[in-house]
């Protein structure tokens, strides 16, 4: 084989870094949407590399549902400190207090959809014209339709039938005042690529991804972590299990899996044999057949 050939992880890395640099060059105020999950950690890691030896030039934006894993917040604050970058926090609780969002009721209530209002308000208030996210096309069928540069109108809405064609590696980020873009540098990565890369680069991730004894309840075919934000009904029982999480989101909807994987190497091995998708344990996607599409059209990340 020709010696001038990149392996697939290097090719994905180079592509993602090119896109991060385009976002920086084409927009006035680009930020990284940071949830504390592995994908946004990966994007932040790539952004740091993309601008080396300068400091990473993006602020991190965290939409705080108020229902967080404490580990996530700790991880976020440590990362901010080590990178020396600015953190912008949008609070779903404040949106509720201000009457901009209404809390869901009932056993299955979550604040997941409420994030949309908080995120869009935050984008408007901070004059953000580009929100960089760690969404991947392999996560969900609707995300498979995303462009790298995804246009949002001045209501923050995504219109899957009217996306800009995206050709070669030429990205058109032109927009009018009030509109913004979502930019997804790791669109072409799969869950497996992310883990292989985390392993290769030795990237630090929250302990929630590693197997540990945790208090959980069985709901909606997955292990939901027990927390003060969970409304238990009579049939539900809190048990302790050896659990890890494949995705991190709002604590009320993030389903864990039973696993013994307590190192990145073991996680890579586990992922290669697992028969369920990563989002298969996310209650927010199980609400309807087009739950993600419906949320994305309204401006969801």
């Amino acid at each position, binding site marked *: 084989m020709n010696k001038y050939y990149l392996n697939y992880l290097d090719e994905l890395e180079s592509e993602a870094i090119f896109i991060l*640099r385009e976002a920086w060059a084409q927009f006035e105020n680009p930020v990284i949407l940071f949830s504390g999950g592995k994908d946004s950690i990966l994007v932040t890691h790539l952004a740091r590399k993309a601008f080396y030896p300068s400091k990473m030039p993006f602020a991190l934006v965290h939409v705080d549902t108020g229902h967080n894993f404490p580990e996530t917040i700790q991880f976020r604050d440590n990362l901010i400190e080590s990178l020396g970058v600015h953190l912008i926090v949008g609070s779903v609780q404040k949106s509720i207090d201000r009457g901009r969002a209404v809390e869901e009721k009932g056993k299955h209530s979550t604040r997941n959809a409420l994030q949309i209002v908080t995120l869009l308000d935050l984008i408007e208030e901070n004059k953000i014209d580009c929100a960089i996210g760690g969404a991947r096309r392999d996560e969900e069928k609707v995300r498979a339709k995303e462009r790298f540069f995804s246009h949002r109108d001045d209501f923050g809405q995504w219109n899957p039938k009217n996306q800009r064609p995206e050709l070669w590696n030429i990205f058109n980020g032109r927009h009018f005042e009030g509109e913004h873009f979502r930019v997804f540098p790791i669109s072409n990565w799969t869950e497996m690529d992310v883990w292989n890369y985390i392993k290769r680069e030795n990237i630090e991730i929250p302990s929630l991804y590693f197997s540990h004894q945790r208090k959980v309840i069985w709901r909606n075919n997955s292990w939901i972590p027990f927390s003060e934000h969970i409304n238990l009904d009579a049939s539900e029982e809190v048990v302790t299990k050896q659990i890890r999480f494949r995705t991190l989101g709002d604590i009320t909807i993030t389903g864990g899996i039973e696993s013994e994987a307590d190192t990145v190497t073991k996680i890579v091995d586990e992922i290669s044999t697992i028969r369920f998708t990563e989002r298969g344990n996310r209650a927010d996607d199980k609400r309807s057949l087009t739950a993600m599409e419906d949320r994305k059209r309204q401006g969801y990340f």
Partner: protein
Amino acid sequence: MKIDNNQLLRFITSGNVDDGKSTLIGRLLYDSKSIYEDQLQNVKRISKRKGNDEIDLTLFTDGLRDEWEQGITIDVAYQYFTTPKRKFIIADTPGHVQYTRNMFTGASTANLAIILVDVRYGVTEQTKRHSFIASLLKIPNAIVCINKMDLVNFSKDVYDTIVNEFKIFSSKLSINDIRFIPMSALLGDNVVDKSSRMEWYKGDPLLHTLEIIPINNDINEASVRFPIQTILRPQNEVDQDYRRYVGRLASGVLRKGDEITVLPSGLTSKVKTIYKYDKDMQEVFAPMSISIALEDNIDISRGDMIVKSNNKPNIVQDIEVMLCWLHTDAAKPRAKYFIKQTTNEQKAIIKEIIYKIDIKTLEKDYECEGLKMNDICKVKLKITKPLMVDLYKENRITGSLILIDETTNETVAAAMVV
């Protein structure tokens, strides 16, 4: 999973509506065990809701509400799968009305095109159109899948006739490597597993072909093309004038000490340091993203291009391109457009339409007027400031460009320098 050759193959699937593209991809994913249990359950659930007893393979890829309700593919979707040999990215493009522009979108980054042919209809207009676009976009490899063989009793004669017909037509095209596979995507013959019903076919099934086909490395090692994305001025350096130029190498191999020229200014210098992110490198090559510092302080900005002094691209203000009009609104006469080529953005006007290609016959029409959606034309562009370009056939990155409507900000056309 450990991947043998660590390579990434990007391919596109093309073919008419109902030729079975989504079925083929569904079959490829399903039979290669790339479908997860919960995706399968979900698809079974929707299939049932639609009144199908069998699982509907198209539902693995058609993700939007309108798509599964109407049974059509609306927009390009990207799918991923990995085998022990390779990692694959599929651009699943719709065969519907907006065929040309969607195919352009999916095909622009592809190394390989799958062209689906319905065995009952043979080489149709749509087959020709897709093959022509694949050839125009210089996709190096094509696999023609003669599908629905189950509907002609797996007949070798019918297959041979279509292959011959395709070969006669494709002799006019410039695709280096064309292979043919008889298959039934619906039943799974020759997709992942070799069909026992077509013993006369001696070749490999599709998946194995995808795994072993050489990925054409079209990187021209001699032609260093480094379009500048942005400039870094690290504040923590002792020397405040220190600058780093960042971008992604479009082609070529660049080494420390190389004599370079900055375009369009023409100023020259030498490469002092090269960083691949945080790693100090002696040598880098396309398509790496890098940053470099030069021996001399030169005024360089986004859109400029660094090249080796002994091998330069063309610097032009008037260029001829093959252009595909992508937008529903027709081109406005004498209108100015933003033109984007690599990281360079200027303004351009469409000066003259030389000919339009009749996509049915592939004949040139010199009497044509105006540019409408899906038209493919050879046009002359006049640009306000010079662009640094190569011929598309020599460099897919420095030879390609897009036009953007200055009043709507929409991408309206894609073009290749000829």
